[in-house]
């Protein structure tokens, strides 16, 4: 099949991506415990000296791994996450009042991000109803006699995503469990940048296998690869 229309080429330089991140308030990131965090964009944020960020993502990584490096280097003023336990630096900054932390249960956080990505205002969730930290300030709604919490949707100025492979249009596939929050985050950015281990020509990915449709993506850049040592490698 041939087409007369050529899809947009969204290849983006790291410099351009950082220009976008530099002007924004909130950055949503894909990844879980560092796995699936975009290493080259994180490095770029550190080198560019970008600071005062509000981060939204699953967790705070580890002090020397993934998104956690931005916290260790004090580039973050607030994080919305489900977990910061693997990054004691984040816990200390929180206790010292240097880092604002908003906790959301992990599955609820995923749905809040998904809701933002699919254009909803929020979701009704029946988990955490007995947890005061979760229910605080949230509206309770009865549906068919059962209580739910209204959890609001999350979007961000920029979403940064790590993919195994992307084409130049932004269609993306992920690497095993590095998929985690990445496809959800990819939809929830006002601007979404995909850092891919491999970039192929548009048309080379099997449409049947695409996880993130490129329409959600604004920029694609090549990853320089993970430059940190994983916790399990240190033993």
């Amino acid at each position, binding site marked *: 099949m041939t087409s007369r229309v050529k899809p947009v080429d969204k290849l983006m330089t790291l410099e351009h991506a950082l220009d976008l991140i530099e002007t924004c308030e909130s950055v949503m990131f894909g990844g879980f415990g560092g796995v699936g965090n975009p290493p080259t964009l994180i490095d770029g944020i550190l080198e560019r000296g970008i600071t005062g960020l509000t981060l939204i993502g699953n967790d705070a990584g580890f002090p020397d791994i993934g998104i956690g490096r931005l916290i260790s280097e004090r580039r973050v003023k607030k994080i919305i996450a489900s977990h910061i336990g693997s990054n004691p630096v984040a*816990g200390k900054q929180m206790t010292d009042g240097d880092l604002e932390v908003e906790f959301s*249960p992990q*599955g609820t956080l*995923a*749905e809040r991000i998904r809701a933002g990505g699919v254009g909803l205002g929020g979701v009704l969730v029946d988990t955490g109803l007995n*947890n*005061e930290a979760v229910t605080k300030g949230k509206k309770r709604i009865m549906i068919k006699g059962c209580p739910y919490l209204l959890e609001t949707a999350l979007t961000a100025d920029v979403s940064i995503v790590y993919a195994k492979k992307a084409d130049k249009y932004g269609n993306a596939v*992920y690497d*095993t469990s590095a998929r985690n929050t990445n496809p959800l985050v990819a939809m929830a950015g006002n601007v979404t940048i995909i850092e891919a281990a491999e970039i192929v020509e548009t048309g080379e990915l099997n449409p049947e296998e695409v996880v993130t449709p490129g329409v959600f993506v604004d920029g694609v850049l090549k990853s320089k690869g993970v430059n940190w040592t994983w916790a399990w490698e240190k033993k």
Partner: protein
Amino acid sequence: MGKEIRHQMARRAAREIHAGMVVNLGIGIPTLVADYVPDTTPVMFHAENGVLGTGPSPVQGQENPFLCNAGGFPITASKGASYFDSAAAFAIIRRGKLDMTIMGALQVSENGDLANWIVPGKRVPGMGGAIELAEKAGKVIILMNHVDKEGNPKILKKCTLPLTAAGCVNLIITDMAVLEVKTEGLFLKEVFPPYTIRDVQERTEPKLVLEDAVSGT
């Protein structure tokens, strides 16, 4: 806690896993449980970072750093495994497809309340996926030390730490005993040697109900 004891607890927990189950294993001792499930028992292990069908640890040098369990340690995929995003990982939990979760705890109350996400002013790990797992899994098994580092009971009449979820725990396996939470009370099912029933009761705040089969003095 000694290595032997950790494995004893894991081995005991593995006996709760039956053919056909979908099971989530938490970080720490629960991770060891998979090693004690016989190869002949078909089980799907769920990892909330987006894997159903996690397999044993890979051979050293053959790790895929992106294929990990929720604790960030490399795993393999078993036959029939699938990868999915975090929303689907929690859909499995929320939709009632998870038969069992095995996790650690800071405190458990006699009616099955669970506290394992924060020690105010001291530790602020966050709840992660513990709320969904505790509330929605078919069965919740807690693996933990019977007492805390200061020797205080962790099984209490009422939790003093902020709750993760209320009335969710079914079975508690400690270094000393196995206890079952029932509406009629907290039942002592088994006591591990060298401990006695009295030892367990002395280190447990609520009054234990003795199962007929429990031996010891």
